[in-house]
């Protein structure tokens, strides 16, 4: 039994296996020598190949492991369209200010001026840009080496210029700030310079933030438009020089509308006068007159110097040593209860309350509402309130301060103060940013009880004599009017008034505050030749409330029971009116 041994063959015809030791036995010496040489050479080549492989592997190891750098993928590009300067939005995300891609078109006049077809070139460029041919001709034949033909050309103009194919024109891509709402919210937004750097308003206040992200304001553009439209109508109707309107949420200090008229189109800001560019809402300081009687009454109640049932004699002018007698405008000439003093806006009654309270208390109380300092708001346009030096306060000044003379504050100071009288006694610094007061603590300025009494009295001021079919009767509006001689360059102007109305609604659960103020409204037929606040500012204020209440989802107030002292004050007033 022969078992064939299998082995690999070295050479052809080696099927017959040989013992390993006998491999070379049958080869002659020459062949054996040649094989040895071949084997040696093969070994030599194999060695170098092996070495080469070792080097390559070593290098690969070095590059891929030792020197590993993650690959930067081309696909890691951003997918959002990045603006250099971001948008300003209203509280509902509507664009108030944005940047649009545009171009600055320049020319190198050195390449044009010696050409024979300069006239034709100027005409073609002027046609593409909608410019005057002479102006373009002047620019392209200028002696300088660089000249802007037009800054901020729009895509259609850019395409038209591209079609011309002139090599001496250069379009520099830029971003141009535009304000789609036009003059609607011009003062608050402010503006930017030619390099897109904020120079006023929100644009300046949030210059850094706008480089990274959108800024969302607390303003509601629809409410802003309602307020502006009503104020424009009022200015025309009452022939006023200007006016302002502010609307704020009383529970968080967020300003929903801020209108100052006259205003301007921020897309062409330099066309307007300085007066038009003045933001009365934050930069103007005014004596608001009788509106301050609210603070006087609240202070009296808070210090328990007076009660709502106290009666003050307003039957004759109040004479103080060294001062003009204090009189009432269309006086009642009878004793008045505290609510009646507010209803009839009695200077005599308020002065007596002020004297009872004392100026030391007044000084401290006004300080709670920030009436001595600039408001801590981000806007650069902030004004310092003006008031009589505190060390000069005496009986006379104290009586004047009680009905709003001798202290000028900004409209924003005023609504923040009145809002805290009505909202339960908590002061919120006004803010123009949505959620701007979210992390800020509120400050108690009066007690809940005083605030409750103030709400009822403010309601009586507006609703006494308010027609039952008035569109705002259902919203339980409360407020106060004030008319004061207008101040111009530090002097009172004879016959010129600043009339104001501040209204809060709904008074059973205050939500919003509205301030309307006119600069020098005239006596007109429609107002029976009166020009005090009750005839103009109050009318506009109530019109605005009637328009915005359904939009803001404020439910009509069905039955808000008034306390006995209010019922009594109204009864007394009605009876007194009948007697006259």
């Amino acid at each position, binding site marked *: 039994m022969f078992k064939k041994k299998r082995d690999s063959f070295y050479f052809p015809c080696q099927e017959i296996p040989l013992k390993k030791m006998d491999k070379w036995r049958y080869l002659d010496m020459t062949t054996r020598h040649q094989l040895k040489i071949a084997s040696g050479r093969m070994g030599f080549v194999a060695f170098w190949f092996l070495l080469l492989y070792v080097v390559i592997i070593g290098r690969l190891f070095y590059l891929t492991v030792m020197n590993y750098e993650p690959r930067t993928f081309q696909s890691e590009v951003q997918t959002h369209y990045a603006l250099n300067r971001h948008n300003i939005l209203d509280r509902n995300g509507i664009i108030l200010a*944005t940047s649009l*891609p545009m171009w600055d078109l320049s020319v190198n006049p050195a390449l044009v001026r010696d050409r024979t077809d300069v006239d034709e070139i100027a005409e073609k460029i002027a046609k593409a840009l909608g410019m005057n041919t002479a102006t373009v001709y002047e620019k392209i034949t200028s002696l300088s080496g660089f000249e802007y033909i037009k800054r901020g050309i729009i895509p259609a103009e850019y395409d038209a210029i591209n079609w011309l194919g002139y090599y001496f024109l250069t379009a520099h891509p830029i971003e141009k700030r535009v304000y789609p709402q036009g003059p609607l919210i011009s003062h608050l937004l402010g503006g930017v310079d030619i390099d897109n750097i904020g120079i006023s308003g929100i644009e300046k206040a949030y210059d850094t933030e706008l480089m990274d992200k959108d800024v969302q304001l607390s303003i509601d*553009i629809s409410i802003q438009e309602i307020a502006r439209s009503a104020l424009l109508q009022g200015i025309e109707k009452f022939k006023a020089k200007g006016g302002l309107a502010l609307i704020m949420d009383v529970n968080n200090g967020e300003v929903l509308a801020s209108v100052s008229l006259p205003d301007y189109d921020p897309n062409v800001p330099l066309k307007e006068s300085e007066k038009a560019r003045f933001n009365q809402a934050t930069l103007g300081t005014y004596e608001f007159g009788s509106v301050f009687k609210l603070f006087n009454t609240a202070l009296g109640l808070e210090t328990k110097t007076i009660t709502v049932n106290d009666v003050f004699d307003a039957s004759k002018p109040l004479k103080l040593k060294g001062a003009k007698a204090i009189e009432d405008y269309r006086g009642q000439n009878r004793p008045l209860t505290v609510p009646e003093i507010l209803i009839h806006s009695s200077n005599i009654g308020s002065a007596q309350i002020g004297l009872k309270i004392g100026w030391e208390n007044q000084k401290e109380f006004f300080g709670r509402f920030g009436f001595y300092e600039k408001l801590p708001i981000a806007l650069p346009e902030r004004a310092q309130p003006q008031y009589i030096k505190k060390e000069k306060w005496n009986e006379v000044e104290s009586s004047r301060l009680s009905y709003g003379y001798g202290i000028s504050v900004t409209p924003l100071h005023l609504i923040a103060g009145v809002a805290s009288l009505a909202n339960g006694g908590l002061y919120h610094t006004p803010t123009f940013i949505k959620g701007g007061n979210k992390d800020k603590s509120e400050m108690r300025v009066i007690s809940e009880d005083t605030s409750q009494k103030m709400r009822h009295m403010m309601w009586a001021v507006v609703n006494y004599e308010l027609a039952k079919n008035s569109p705002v009767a259902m919203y339980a509006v409360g407020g106060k009017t004030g008319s004061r001689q207008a101040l111009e360059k530090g002097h009172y102007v004879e016959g010129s008034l600043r009339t104001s109305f501040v209204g809060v609604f709904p008074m059973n659960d205050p939500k919003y505050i509205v301030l309307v103020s006119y600069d020098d409204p005239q006596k007109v037929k429609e107002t029976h030749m009166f020009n005090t606040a009750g005839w103009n500012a109050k009318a506009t204020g109530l019109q605005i409330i009637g328009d915005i209440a359904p939009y803001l989802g404020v439910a009509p107030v069905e039955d808000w029971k008034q306390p006995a002292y209010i019922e009594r004050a109204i009864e007394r007033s009605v009876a007194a009116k009948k007697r006259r």
Partner: protein
Amino acid sequence: MKQSSVNLFCISMAILSGVGMFLLKYHVLDQEKELVKLKRQIVSDNRELHLLRADWAFLTDPQHLRKMIQESDLKPLLGKQIVKPDEIEERSNPLLKEKEETDV
């Protein structure tokens, strides 16, 4: 036989892996090019959207809308037009009424 089969399998797998890697790499590169193209398209679309949003803000300027409303003789909502659900008069269902009549 067994060893050579294993060798053959290993060599085949190595070749297949190599070819697979080669194809995969170029497929990924193609995909990446496509991705870059799409992302650039997205940027361009976002730019268009930005311009359209700005345009929309111009077109829906409340002052412009007020003019349109006045031209169309529309009026803003008044507070007295808002009523509670229980104040709405209950209206009979015409289908039910028809059914009742048929039953009779």
